[in-house]
């Protein structure tokens, strides 16, 4: 069987594209990193790809808000391609800056077209945080998390990762639609209840990742691509292992290959 191909987008300032590519290859996909300028110039056919990934970084230096200008470019240059990818049900993932771009372009949570219901803004403590967090997969609808049966341990590295919603009722909508894909939890798996540093940014409901109502598009702040090997675990010298972020990426690749 041919390996699924993942298209990894690169805007100016994207910087976790290479390790995301390596992680996807480890998960069984073929990864191609394409700068947006190249996509425009080559008139790349997005239908050649089975997965789409928007990686982390500081696209355009996070000027005017993290992911804002990346989102604008997606909306202006690639609205059709993104729309098609999302509608076709193929797996799409946005990580960190990619999540911010998907949210700010309205792809996520995507419940009402052309209306923003959520945003990612400055962490509650106002500071960039680089630390490891524990995530509990929640959504049984999200193709990236539905079959995961163990926690994920991986780092966050962001200053604008606090999920805020337009209104409190929208939180109920997300629950009702099973759109909360991942939550920050304590190491034992119980909810962080906003407690720092387990919930590193103060996100409402300890939400670390959400999916669209269809379940094929996942956005998350933490970096599963930075925990795909044993020696990346902060306590591997203590013999601790497992809870790989790789599992999440494998789910997407598996789904794309089916």
């Amino acid at each position, binding site marked *: 069987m041919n390996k699924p191909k993942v298209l990894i987008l690169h805007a*100016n300032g994207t*910087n976790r594209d*290479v390790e995301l590519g390596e992680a996807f290859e480890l998960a069984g996909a073929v990864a191609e990193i394409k700068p947006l*300028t190249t996509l425009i110039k080559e008139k790349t056919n997005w239908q050649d790809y089975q997965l789409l990934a928007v990686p982390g970084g500081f696209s355009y230096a996070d000027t005017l808000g993290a992911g804002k200008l990346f989102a*604008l470019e997606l909306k202006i240059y690639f609205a059709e391609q993104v729309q098609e990818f999302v509608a076709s049900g193929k797996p799409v993932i946005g990580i960190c800056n990619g999540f911010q771009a998907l949210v700010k372009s309205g792809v996520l949570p995507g419940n009402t077209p052309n209306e*923003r219901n959520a945003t990612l803004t400055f962490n509650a403590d106002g500071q*960039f945080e680089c*630390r490891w967090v524990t995530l509990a997969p929640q959504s049984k609808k999200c193709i990236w998390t539905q079959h995961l049966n163990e926690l994920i341990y991986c780092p966050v590295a962001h200053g604008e990762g606090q999920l805020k919603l337009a209104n409190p009722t929208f939180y109920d909508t997300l629950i009702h639609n099973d759109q909360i894909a991942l939550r920050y939890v304590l190491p034992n798996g119980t909810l962080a209840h906003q407690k720092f540093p387990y919930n590193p940014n103060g996100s409402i409901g300890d939400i670390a990742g959400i999916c669209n109502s269809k379940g094929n598009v996942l956005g998350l702040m933490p970096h599963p691509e930075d925990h*795909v090997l044993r020696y990346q675990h902060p306590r591997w010298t*203590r013999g601790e292992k497992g809870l790989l972020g790789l599992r999440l990426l494998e789910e997407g690749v598996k789904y794309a290959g089916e």
Partner: protein
Amino acid sequence: MALHRFIVSPTSQTDPHAARLLNNAKAFGFDTINEIKVDNLYFVEGDLTSIAQQRLANELLHDIICETCVVEEAATPLTPTLTLPREYTREGTGMAELQSYVIELLLRPGVTDPVAEQIIRGAELLNIRNIKHAASGQRFNIKTTQPLSNAELQHLAKRLLVNPVIHQYNLGSINQVHFPEAVPGSDEVANIPIRKLDDKALLALSQERRSALSLQEMQAIQAYYQGEERDPTDIEFETIAQTWSEHCSHKTFRAHIQYGDETIKGLLNTFIRRATNNIAAPWVASAFVDNAGIIDFDDQYQLAFKAETHNHPSAIEPFGGANTGLGGVIRDVLGVSAKPIANTDVFCFGPQDLPMSQVREGTLHPRLISLGVIAGVQDYGNKTGIPTVNGTIFYDAAYSANPLVYCGCVGLIPKNKHPRDPQLNDRVIVLGGRTGRDGLRGATFSSMTMDAQTGEVAGASVQIGDPIIAKGLIEVVTRARDLGLYTAITDCGAGGLSSAVGEMGSLIGADVDLANVPLKYPGLAPWEIWLSEAQERMLMAVPPEKVCALSELCDTYKIELTDLGHFTNNNCLVVRYQGKPVLQLNNTFLFDGMPRLHFDIPTLPTPCRSVTEIQKTATQEELESWVLTLLSHPNIASKEHVIRRYDHEIQGGTVVKPLTGVKNDGPSDACVIKPQGTSGVRGMVLSNGLNPEFGKYDPYRMAVSVIDEAVRNAVAVGANPERIAILDNFCWGDPKRPETLAALVECCRGCYDGAMHYFTPYISGKDSLNNEYVAANGQRSAIPGTLLLSALGIIEDINHAVTMDFKKAGNLIYLLGETKSEFAGSHFNLCGGNIENSVVPELPTYGPRLYHTLHAAMKQQLVRSCHDLSEGGLSVSLAEMCIGGRLGCEISLGDTNVITALFSESNGRLLVEIMPENKLAFEKLFMTNKLNTLVHYLGIVTNDAVMIVNTLERATSGSPLHSHPAELRRGDPLVALPELLISLPIEKLVRAWQTPNFGSFA
């Protein structure tokens, strides 16, 4: 044309940025301030319809979910004196009436404003095309319980909110913005009549142009032009001043020094390069040749390493200074065709609670300096996607006016992929940012001492970097390298194009035209274009037929490419403006014509070198209190609040992280990285050594100590001691003062001896002299002579890496090395230990053998944890290992002076943790190497969460001492009775270590 003001405010009542600002305001004594709200402020010039304004606001400038945006038409321009100083409102809160004030700031014209550029670009994406200019700023809404006078508001603005070097501000709203128009530069070139000047006039000229040239140097220039029978142009004069600056030419390090009876033909050659040459390590690929030193990594790759200082710029504009300091060193690494893979940062700051009254005129408070510097490194390192993985922070009152900012960068290069051979007719290509007055005369600026006016006069020397352009350069250069698109590359650093083109062209010659250089704003004279230190620019020699391919690559990553001219083969540098030559200098004169400096100085009195055993003893209570005081000394206390600001995980290869242990908060000795894209199990190790306290007493021993520390730290995580390369970074005072230079000589001598001892070659280095502040009354204050030693090592198998956290109760704890009563410059003394007439720790003769044996033990995976002993000695290291593992320990010191045993900072010592089943194998290794006297069994790791130190082993502790080889025993348990010295719960240690206490400076 209309000027629109967009005011963007957070809707949330709890704005963390505002909260932090308020904290700082209170810390600086503004007690009556109740609230400071911060809005983002954007100015857009252009005739915009209300629909366009709305779209700009909603789709670009603010986040509709968590911010509000108000659009205003800027009022008719008012002269500043007419601007209302405050907007007075009454708030009937039922409590005291609050006064409201507004202060607005804007970047000064000419300071890079990436936000403004993105506003225009974003607007174009939204199809809003009639925006002429944009600018960004901030608006502070301040509420106070008591009225503030204008003078107080000015004070608040200058002390806390604004940096006048880069910002302009107004008490009240800003209604007028000066936008520079983009027009070509001027062709104004002045001749400088130098041939007939007398000595006094020569010096006056040097001063007037802030060139920092001595009389002797001015005379050499004069003689050259007398021979040429013409006067220099301004651009020629400035080029010579740059090239001959301390910063670019390291003239003090090349000077001939008569040091007592000893003739030293250059510190650099005598002490630094000679070590490298004598060691002649086959794995050193390049040392002191390129922008960065290069060593072999494995069969396929090499590693480049460079560290730089950016002290003066960081003193006057901490964010921009540190930002561009890191930017510069990243470009150094890119300048040897390497992809940056790790950053390091080491800072020296003044006490963070320095009373405002002690802040020197024209300088910033150390707290603002440290906040700015850390934010600057965070911004640049994180945004360029390079993990910041190693560093330290050292505090001393002497750094208050003159902080030190060291930035280092490691890069990865495929073997033999760095070309250094520009060819005749290759194009002179500049990649990257546009040129402005940024950083003008930065090289000469950094070669001067600072005074109260420095910030004002040297404002142009400072700039803010643009890390996204740097990231784009990384993408372009690494790909261009792989495609073989260039024949030589270097970065534009200090001295700008003059240095870069000059140095690259010094091999063959070059002919360039400055009219081709794209400018940020109008009116730059040719000399300014030539010398500008605008950031994020790389220079390449590109064969004409490859320019097109390079240009395409640049388009992909949105990097500007400029063709300045071509390389020649006449050994001459010709610079033109619109075809007309403005600079014609002979390379031989420019690069070799500088008169060599000569110094004749008396030798430094020999510091105390004889060890006297101390008699001092202490009670349990005193010992415990000392341990806690040391743990919360700012130099020792946790740096987690800084480390977490840096992304140390990016690129996915951080095997040993800066923080480690059960709670990911123990202090690692060094980091281990498995570089992205390499195969196999090999990794690289980064560590550092720094101890200015030692230098205050004995600069020679400071040097050998920091070499020992850097090597020891690297070995502690698993580096092979036979494969460690080092960098020297000197920050010193004014070398024209004999005792300052003498201390530098002794320090350099230590550099040689230390490097030869451990056989660690220098591959690159840097010196920053004249780190002094001169007060208005002429009183000088210099920093303590400071040497940062950075080490780059190799670990053959990352699976053998070791971290510092205790792993398991029941494991055995050993101390390796010899402890002597060495207290000069110790942190025990800094915390009130008062041990006088002591010595700075010596270089342990056994060091190399001990480290090799320890490394062998690690390769056999006998070592469960390992931590070096440095500031605070055994007590601090032991406590840190307990903190890392959240485990207790019980050790006994034996029949020895407890103060020395616990707090002396003797070099060459480490603590290791061994599983009981590996005891014999471990001890045998050391015995085979005849090191048994250096291996001291101390006790065991426990589950009790208490750190216990006894004089002698307690019979009840159940540790396996009785099964110990006799020669490893200390003391004689049969005669003396054990005495409890320290019993401290781990949580108490954690609390002390995580709460830095600047009160300990008093």
